[in-house]
């Protein structure tokens, strides 16, 4: 910590000109997961620039899969090397924490991304355009929808292989986000993963206007929330004189009393702390889609290409909750009595509004969007517990939930009619008669969302509710089970529709996917059942990862 302090005194006081500036010490080995993904992303850009068009797809896919797998191996290596437990520490001059929660979340994000990339690369679902197999992304993003240049691009068989490096950049940002140990790193990570996501949202091959509208909405609201976050960071800096998590926590606790002369007017001013903390929380709650910062979720989920929606719904949530946990547990534990009532309120309205509004939805992607809001509420119930059990339950829930979500959205890509994916719920009627297997798989995911025992959803829900109850939030648990009951209603409604309704004559067909999407869906089912029947191993893993380093 001493050289961290030195660095900060360098940054903040601009004093000590007589000292030599020490060369920063970067632990490359411990940052390797992020670095590998970033390197793969940069290579992907080069591939895009130098390889001929026809070989780009395979090269990109290979590079992305290998990059993500290698990064995952690096995470495993670090965890096996004890960096999750006794060797946990702060790396990169205080910017990045290498500890249990960080490694667990990074591993989850990498696995989720790996599976999500399979759905990105799927090229059998959309009918071939002029003899070229195409994926769900626009032929040429730059061409105006409906224009001559778009037709030409489609005819030429262009595909947007840039999505692979873009995803890799997003993943790199997500890896840093829950590990960020100062507010500036947090902000940079947020931007690094958000900007690629805005772009990805706009790339749908079909219904491009809807997709672009979603991207613009996401971008505007996202930029707004980033501004809040940044403003909050500035206020917190004014309060504490530092942006490191530990440093701010020390000032909050009152352990550090020395007042920075440059900030004499503001330091220790509680108004700054409260407003700044609230603004930073708002930025993060926006990313996880908690009420009242959830407005973007349904539109963006609906408009974005479905593989992107799945990726976003799963991986962003993991990264966002990771960062939220670290912020609340490391920076603001001293402020617990101030933020807990607020978070209680947020959790309650998030659970209830997510569940209640979902009941009225008629589009399967919007339905899943509102269900993701309700789930964000359940996760918040675990976040509020402020115990090691709370952390590990949230970690477990995130891992369980992200695979269910990925699988569910992957199934959505399969159900198609002439206009592309048939996301209107009415069209799903009788799917269970037409394609029993696909409907059964989707039913498994829905039951997991509903938290029926023997699925991962139940184990996760039980874990967070247990943590919340132990943390003294019994009322939250009661609201949680009530909104679960409401939520169960609409999950069941979809099952009724699929199995007990007569198929409509011009209903959608279920496309036969390639091995890529099949693998993604199978992974979702396997994880859902495995975490439901034998969750102990993963609970252990999450339990060991339950302590944040300061």
């Amino acid at each position, binding site marked *: 910590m001493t050289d961290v302090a030195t660095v900060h005194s360098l940054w903040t006081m601009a004093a000590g000109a007589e000292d030599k500036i020490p060369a920063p010490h970067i632990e490359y080995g411990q940052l390797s997961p992020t670095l590998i993904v970033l390197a793969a992303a940069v290579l992907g850009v080069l591939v895009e620039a130098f390889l001929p068009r026809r070989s780009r797809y395979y090269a990109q896919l290979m590079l992305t899969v290998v990059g993500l797998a290698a990064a995952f191996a690096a995470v495993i290596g670090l965890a096996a090397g004890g960096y999750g437990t006794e060797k946990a520490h702060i790396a990169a001059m205080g910017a990045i924490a290498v500890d249990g929660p960080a490694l667990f979340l990074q591993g989850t994000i990498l696995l989720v991304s790996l599976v999500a990339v399979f759905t990105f690369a799927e090229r059998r679902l959309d009918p071939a355009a002029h003899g070229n197999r195409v994926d769900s992304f626009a032929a040429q993003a730059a061409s105006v929808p409906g224009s001559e240049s778009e037709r030409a691009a489609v005819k030429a068989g262009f595909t947007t292989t840039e999505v692979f490096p873009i995803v890799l950049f997003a993943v790199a940002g997500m890896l840093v986000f829950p590990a960020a140990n100062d507010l500036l790193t947090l902000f940079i990570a947020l931007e690094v993963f958000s900007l690629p996501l805005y772009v990805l949202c706009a790339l749908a091959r079909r219904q491009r206007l809807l997709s672009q509208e979603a991207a613009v909405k996401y971008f505007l609201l996202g930029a707004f929330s980033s501004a809040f976050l940044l403003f909050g960071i500035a206020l917190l800096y004014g309060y504490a004189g530092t942006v490191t998590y530990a440093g701010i926590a020390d000032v909050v606790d009152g352990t550090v009393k020395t007042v920075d002369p440059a900030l004499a007017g503001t330091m220790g001013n509680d108004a700054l702390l409260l407003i700044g903390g609230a603004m930073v929380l708002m930025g993060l709650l926006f990313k996880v889609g908690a009420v009242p910062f959830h407005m973007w979720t349904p539109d963006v989920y609906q408009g974005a290409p479905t593989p992107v929606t799945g990726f976003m719904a799963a991986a962003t949530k993991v990264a966002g909750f990771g960062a939220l946990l670290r912020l609340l547990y490391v920076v603001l534990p001293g402020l617990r009595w101030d933020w807990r009532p607020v978070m209680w309120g947020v959790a309650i309205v998030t659970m209830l509004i997510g569940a209640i509004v979902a009941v009225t939805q008629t589009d399967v992607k919007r339905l899943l969007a509102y269900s993701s809001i309700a789930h964000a509420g359940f996760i918040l119930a675990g976040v509020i517990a402020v115990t090691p059990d709370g952390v590990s339950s949230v970690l477990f829930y995130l891992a369980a939930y992200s695979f269910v979500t990925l699988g569910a959205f992957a199934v959505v890509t399969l159900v198609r009619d002439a206009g592309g994916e048939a996301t209107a719920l009415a069209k799903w009627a009788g799917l269970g008669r*037409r394609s029993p297997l696909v409907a059964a798989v989707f039913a498994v995911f829905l039951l997991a969302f509903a938290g029926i025992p023997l699925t991962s959803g139940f184990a996760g829900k039980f874990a967070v509710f247990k943590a919340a109850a*132990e943390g003294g939030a019994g009322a939250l648990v009661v609201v949680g089970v009530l909104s679960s009951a409401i939520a169960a209603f609409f999950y069941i409604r979809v099952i009724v529709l699929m199995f007990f309704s007569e*198929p409509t004559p011009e209903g959608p067909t279920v496309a036969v996917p390639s091995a890529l999407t099949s693998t993604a869906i199978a992974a979702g089912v396997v994880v859902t059942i495995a975490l439901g029947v034998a969750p102990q191993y993963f609970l252990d893993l999450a339990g060991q990862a339950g302590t944040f380093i300061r």
Partner: protein
Amino acid sequence: MSFPLLTVTAAVPALGAVATAAVPAARRTVAKWLALLFSLATLALAAVQLARFDTGAAGPFQLTESHAWIKDFGVRYELGVDGIAVVLVALTALLIPFVILAGWHDADPLEEARPNRRWRPTQGFFALILLVEAMVVISFEATDVFVFYIFFEAMLIPMYFLIGGFGDRAGEHGEEETAARRSHAAVKFLLYNLAGGLIMLAAVIGLYVVTAHQTGDGTFSLQEIIRARADGRLDMASSTERLLFLGFFFAFAVKAPLWPLHTWLPNAMGESTAPVAVLITAVVDKVGTFAMLRFCIQLFPEASKWATPVIMVLAVVSILYGALLAVAQRDIKRLVAYASISHFGFIILGIFAMTTQGQSGATLYMVNHGISTAALMLVAGFLISRRGSRLIADYGGVQKVAPVLAGTFLVGGLATLSLPGLAPFVSEFLVLVGTFSRYPALGIIATVGIVLAALYVLVLYQRTMTGPVKAEVRAMPDLKVRELVVVAPLIALLVFLGVYPKPLTEIVNPAVKHTMSQVDKTDPRPDVPVRAATDKDASHEEASHEEAEAAK
């Protein structure tokens, strides 16, 4: 390690479900025989359980198994049976082969309505029945609250598909309307039970938190919690205990079902096929009443005593309300459903009377009600499948064209109204005696239920079976061999257990005594000198009483 008999008893039907579901679409008959075979194997295993069950053993639970499962939640995979559980496992295993046989043709797909070649409703139907059996068996055997809860909830899903996916061929309302009613019934069933289950989930979590706070180690093990309470490590505050009790009881009262949480049952039973209706009322619902005995009373004895007055009143309301609505029904299946609500009222009355007779009576009642309802409902199903209508008014004079059908229907009906000499009489009598010794007023009011039972059963019989032969029933065939094979053993069992219930009571009584000891309740001493009322004397009195009422 000894042979895990309890696990295997539950695993065999589960395996059977997988095997049945895997049979190719064209081989429907293979699937049926496979399902029957697996259900018979389960029955054999249940018989082995009964044989190896030692009525004189000291501990409450036998054939126990215990393995670590989810350490973080304090969950152990703990199974064990007491006298009550072993009898109910046997009942389940006994009824399922009959349910399968009775539903032999219920899920044959109509050839023209086959959307694709992989559509296999028959395989699905029998696989789901076996899956329900597996889950019911394991919830009877579980001595860990969490394990119980998991299967208690999970069994809703196959049950839901059985109700919503399979029904009688379109009746008076036409294809679309029938399908809509069916899916409405299935959703209602699921939502009621899921809501109950989720409330219970909150209580389950609460139980964990309480044990974790007080004993340092959160646990769901029934035996561990009882031990902890006995040696004073666990001492719940009475408000906590009451809340937890209510959480558990709510779920079980929905399942049982107790008035006013009963409204899903008539829909579910009315819209599903007769075998599925039997599965609901004779098998699945028993888990609710069983769980009141095993979990509500043993985990929360003080709260149980606190809640007893209200529950007793609700039970009596159930008895009368169910019976009155049964009298008013025009639909045979709904009539049986309301009759069942009335009977569940008796079971709950017996459980919460907190007397040995009441609780043994309630346990016997669960068994006997299972058998008698199965007999009545399955014969009713055969009747309905012949005519294609569930309305009582569509029948008349059936006994002239199909005497065997009418005769078995009558026996089933008489068992339902607890005629002396048939099994349900013994249990109903015990329940009433048990209730009367502590709550005389409620006991007397509950007796009215018997009178009403005579009314709805006999009126049903009279309207459908006697009188002039209706034109539509003229060509009605009598019971086929398969149907006789279903009904005859059930009737034989009703008669046997009616005359000689001792084998059952011997197994059940020690378990009931143990349960009673948990609540610190002893039977009240009779304050009037009565002669030792044996079943025989009583049966005479009741019989004359019945006859007098029936004659009216």
